[in-house]
């Protein structure tokens, strides 16, 4: 009696002992491996865009955005909270994928199709997370089984090459196991096309043009199988109703927050964080972070180079706010002003804009429903265009340009000029989609990112910034984690 009195069972929670029994448990386990993507992509702009020449921190000034400013100005230290959050989200996903890979085959009653799909998703996600880690930090701890606390306290960094080997192996497994399409409530899961697309991007990052071209062409040639195509209107990509649409190869899924105030929940924070500051056209008034640079703005092709109102590139309007842009909806009659706190040129990022009047997409707190694309079909086209070279590839970049109301590239460009054209195209096509910094890094010229960022006025930038410092909070606990030069 005395023993029972004190030995209470928790009756309001699940423990490791009573889980992984049913197909639903297995699906829940793999869903959990997706979940860190939401947090990771709520942070991604701070690396992909703010560190690059595409955007600056913006915000309210002062202590506002201090950790973003460190990234923006290349004064980053291992204490930067964005770094540790990025690291943490990736490893949360990796461990959960590892658990799924271990547990899913042991679940007693699971259909073969769900088992294969779940394993394919786990391999895919593990690769995606390692790909994000290895590009930002270089050598990172690599493990492919569920890790114990003791191991996590002592694990050392593996060479980058080993990490890439694992990424490629995982994606190759995933492309075999994953289905081509989904319907209904499974939309948003990784498909075979997602795995091939990311694999093409990995090859391109490694400079393996042959494999990158082969893999991206495989997707292009089977576009019908995966349901891929370009939207006629570039802006359709960023409409709520077109989520997981035909151009989406893989995107991070969000729902609006219902008063959620966190980066790491189910909602997307970009709408609030990038909305024009204090203009009240998005929830929580808009914080005006990740402000487009004048240099990016000047890349949009104009009819009259001296007049910014003659921009003919149709990607500008859905991508960013410029002074004079109007937005009218219900009680809102908004005109983007000539300047704002944190935005001297009156620019703001617009791709993730859901107006405050859209009570479904943006209904409270910080967070909105708009998904964030990880890869769009136009990127597959541009990967092939880049990897295959001008002769085979030009028609694909021209297809992307045509959609933006731009003329085909001139014929007979030199390899260097062609690469420059691809880079410019990618910059505009994927502006604010958090690719830019990683594109700068993977350029064949290892000093490319330094030259570009110096030209953008970031005089602090140096070769060491190719890799970010390993978060100090990790090194405090694990003495075997060596540090990058920072």
């Amino acid at each position, binding site marked *: 009696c005395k023993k029972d009195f*004190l030995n209470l069972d928790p009756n309001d929670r699940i423990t490791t002992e009573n889980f992984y029994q049913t197909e639903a448990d297995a699906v829940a386990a793999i869903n959990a491996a997706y979940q860190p993507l939401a947090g990771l992509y709520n942070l991604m702009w701070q690396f992909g865009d703010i560190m690059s020449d595409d955007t600056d921190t913006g915000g309210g000034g002062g202590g506002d955005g201090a950790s973003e400013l460190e990234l923006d100005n290349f004064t980053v230290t291992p204490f930067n909270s964005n770094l540790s959050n990025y690291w943490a989200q990736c490893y949360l996903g990796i461990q959960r994928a590892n658990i799924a890979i271990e547990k899913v085959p042991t679940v007693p009653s699971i259909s073969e199709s769900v088992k294969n799909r779940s394993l394919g998703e786990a391999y895919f996600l593990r690769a995606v997370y390692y790909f994000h880690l290895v590009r930002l930090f270089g050598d990172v701890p690599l493990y492919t089984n569920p890790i114990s606390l003791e191991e996590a306290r002592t694990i050392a960094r593996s060479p980058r090459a080993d990490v890439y080997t694992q990424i490629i192996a995982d994606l190759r497994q995933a492309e075999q196991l994953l289905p081509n399409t989904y319907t209904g409530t499974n939309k948003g899961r990784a498909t075979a096309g997602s795995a091939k697309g990311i694999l093409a991007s990995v090859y391109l990052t490694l400079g393996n043009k042959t494999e990158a071209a082969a893999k991206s062409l495989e997707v292009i040639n089977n576009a019908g199988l995966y349901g891929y195509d370009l939207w006629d209107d570039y802006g359709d990509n960023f409409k709520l109703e077109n989520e997981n649409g035909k151009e989406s190869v893989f995107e991070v899924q969000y729902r609006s927050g219902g008063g959620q105030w966190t980066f790491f929940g189910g909602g997307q924070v970009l709408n609030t964080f990038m909305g024009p500051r204090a203009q009240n056209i998005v929830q929580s008034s808009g914080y005006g972070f990740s402000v487009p640079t004048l240099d990016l703005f000047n890349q949009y092709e104009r009819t009259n180079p001296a007049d910014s109102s003659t921009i003919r590139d149709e990607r500008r309007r859905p991508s960013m706010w410029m002074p004079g842009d109007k937005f009218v909806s219900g009680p809102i009659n908004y005109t983007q002003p000539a*300047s704002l706190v944190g935005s001297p040129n009156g620019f703001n990022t617009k791709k993730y804009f859901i107006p405050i009047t859209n009570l479904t997409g943006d209904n409270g707190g910080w967070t909105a429903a708009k998904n964030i694309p990880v890869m769009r079909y136009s990127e597959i086209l541009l990967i092939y265009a880049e990897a295959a070279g001008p002769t085979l590839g030009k028609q694909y970049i021209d297809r992307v340009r045509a959609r933006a109301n731009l003329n085909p590239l001139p014929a007979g460009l030199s390899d260097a000029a062609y690469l420059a054209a691809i880079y410019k195209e990618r910059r505009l096509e994927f502006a604010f989609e958090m690719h830019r910094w990683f594109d700068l890094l993977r350029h064949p010229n290892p000093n490319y990112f330094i030259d570009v960022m110096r030209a953008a006025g970031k005089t602090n930038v140096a070769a060491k910034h190719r890799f970010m410092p390993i978060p100090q909070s990790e090194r405090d606990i694990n003495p075997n984690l060596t540090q990058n030069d920072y």
Partner: protein
Amino acid sequence: KVTDEKGEALPGVSIKIKNETVSTQTNVNGEFSLRVGSENQVLVFSYLGFTTKEVLVGKNRNIMVTLQPSNASLEEVVVVGYGTQQKATVSSSISSVSSREITATPVADAAQALQGRVAGVTVVQNSGAPGGTGGTGIRIRGISSVTGTNNPLIVLDGFPLPDQGADNVLNSFSPGEIESIDVLKDASAASIYGVRGSNGVIMITTKRGKEGVVNINADVYRGMQQAWRLPTMLNAREYAILNNEARIASLLNPLPKLADPTAVQQEYGEGTDWLDEIFRGAAMTNATVNINGGTEKAKYSFSTGYFQQDGIIEETSFERFTARFNGDLKASKRLKIGNSLALSRTKEDPANTFDAFNSVILLALTAPPTVRPRNPDGTYAGGNGGIDGFDEPNPVYQLEVPQFLNTRFRLTGSVFGEYEIATGLSFKANLGLDFITQSLRGYNPAIPSTGGRPIIRTGVTDQTNFNPSYLGEFTLNYTKKIKDHSFNLLAGYTVQDNNFNTLGAGRTGYSVLGFPVLNDNIFRPVDLSETYNFNGFGTNRLLSYVGRINYDYKGKYILQASIRQDGSSNFGPDNKYAIFPAFSLAWRAIDEDFIKNYTWLSDLKLRFSFGVVGNQDIPGFSYLAGINSGIGYAFGDNTGSGGLVAGAAPTALSNPNIGWEKNQQINIGFDLGFYKNRLTTSVDLYQRKSLDLLFRVPVPTTSGTYEPIPFNTGDMVNKGIDFTLNSVNFDKKNFKWNTTLVLSAYDNELTSLGLASPINNGFARIPGGSLRVEQGFPVNYFYGFKTDGIFQNQAEIDAHATQTPGTNPATSTAPGDIRFVDVNKDGVINDMDRTNIGNPNPTFTYGFTNNFTYKNFELSLFIQGAEGNKVLNFNRWYTESGVSNGNYSNYFIGRWTGEGTSNSIPRAIQNDPNQNNRVSDRFVEDASYLRIKNLRLGYSLPSKWMRTAKIQKMQIYGSVQNLLTVTNYTGFDPEVGGGVDIGYYPQARIFLLGINASF
């Protein structure tokens, strides 16, 4: 007739015939009559506070008896765990507070009444919210835990109340029903409460019936409260000038509305005084009635009270009804039974004055004077992003529109029976319960406003908490005296079962106003985001054995030893039980013959104690590895707020060995009395060592989990001194003056973090925190940048470590910016340069009480204060930086405007490229204060008038609380719980008048 030593009649004196059961009591005039059988019988006169006197009846029919006040220190009784003890034979460190001191200050929460009254007890009122609802931090001898509770265990009439997690709120109970509070400070006194004793124990004893005629006491007061020490903000014109200057410095155009300060002045005059809009004068009322009386066989005490306090912030209030019935019945010669029963209902209408984003005080500080709370037609107004650059919530709207009501019912009671098995041996059973039922309702109607972010979707939330706690306690007590040897033995078995249940729901999106209910027929949610439901429950159980022995030889050599074994359900199967031993020794040297010659010395006692106590405050089941099933992801055609598809994974690893925190305490003390105890003093020196501190040890996130795991690791030391001095300065018939001084000082140091890493705590609005837990420092010391004046010119910037690089003053460090000290000397100012910028703990705290009696007048002056404590005044982050075009304090007028203009207040710039407003010593202020906490003047109406009105005693009194505060602190109030001032609800100054009558 019975009188005191000055000839005043003593009513209610009990008179008994020795060795018989016949007894009576004196009446109002001190008179009595008793039928006696023989002249040889002896009458025994006894009265609380007086020496019992025996008188032979003899032949005299009119017996005149004068009772002498008893030697207080000998007769006084203190309440200890599972019993009482004579103060004279106490060998541990215990302090007592009487009902008179508790009710001297008009507080809603008796916890606040302890402030400055007990050496070693530091009390900080976290907030001036009505009814003490903001909580009161009681810390006995520093802190024992970093992550767990530091609240002392509160034992109400033998019932250990469950810890409330946050700082104590004892406002369910009326201070008027309390007879005494005893504070068990050292481990030897507290260790009888084992795993809950590490923060000391506060024993509250409520009023019980006394033998004698019915005594009715009524006390009514009514008071007026006002805000004081409000800061001065800029008026409309000054604000326009400064805002323009700050915007231009940031390369922003001035807001068109403010561009011409003269026009602004014409339109707005002085502008909106937002602090005046939210603060008000407010009333408070208190009425209590105590009725008690009884016979030798049955005694009762009935108290009832009503307390109502409006807050000095609009739309805040607190109301309480209380009733208590305590009864004692001598059922037979050997059996005593009794009960305590307290009922209360409190109703609180709160306002947000505690969060760093939307506290109405912060909103009122920042709201521009050029924004109006209302439009001329009476509708709500507020800042507009486009026009004012400011659209933070309108504080008036925030106070008036969202409605919250917290109602709490509490029933706390027990029944006990005590049976005398044999002479000196008794068995006592005590069964108690504490039911708290709480209803938290919120209603956010979408009432329109033309600015200031109105609520756009009507929402309702409703939550009910039910927290029952049950106690069973069985003790055997044996008292024996063999010649000069006195023994008291206690053995006991207790079980306690604490539960919490919570059930709540919320809906948003009501299409009509005025139906704050969750019924589906009023509003049926169509989308998951419009609805939330939650339910939680848990149980914590304790099963314990206690044992104690008290022994003294001739009352001179005193020994106490105790042991408790606690079993707690909070810990894993292998780690459920803990043993907490303690002992103490005392030597009453005053009773030694060689000291008796020193007649000026009236008391001398030396005390030594050692004990181990514990802290079990960790969440239940943290020894198990759980699956977090709340990891959802938004798959599907989800373009809105649809539900997340469920995901599940472990987010924490487990530590099966998790156990309690230990606290070892050594206490050395002495009590001294001089000149028949006209002057007494008590000094205690102590060292508290916290061992096996529970830290949530951060896990590497490389593990794929992120929740820190509780480990028993880390040590902390508190060393301190408690000092009490009582002095009777004058003791004449018409004039009396006595003084009490209590002084507490301690040093806190975290000696080891063990496996844990330094923890940054603090301020939610700026990342990185402002308080730090680190080895070798006091817990939660202020952590930030050191400043070194202001850059007067570019040359000074060039010569200094890089702050924000660049040449454009709008985006980089420029003259007029703060120079931060390059602590690590690496040529760059960044987070690595943060360092210790102050200790929030006071060097010492004190209370100084003076009571004067002149004829029928009584004057008491209570001064209380703290010395050496620092406060991080983060109000200034809001009022010196123009957050979102917000207002500035008028201190900022002295800002830097050119070389040599200021070396302390930086230039006005809105986007603050230099981060002048980061956490730095600039905001750390000396918050030492001396406060006239209470001044009370009472006048007792002459007793001859009263006699004709059949009133025993009537006193009219007036008092002022918080009359004067002497401090250099620039914020609202130097008394800040937690050290970081983010505009908490300030305390009011209260003027009140009252009347107290006994019948």
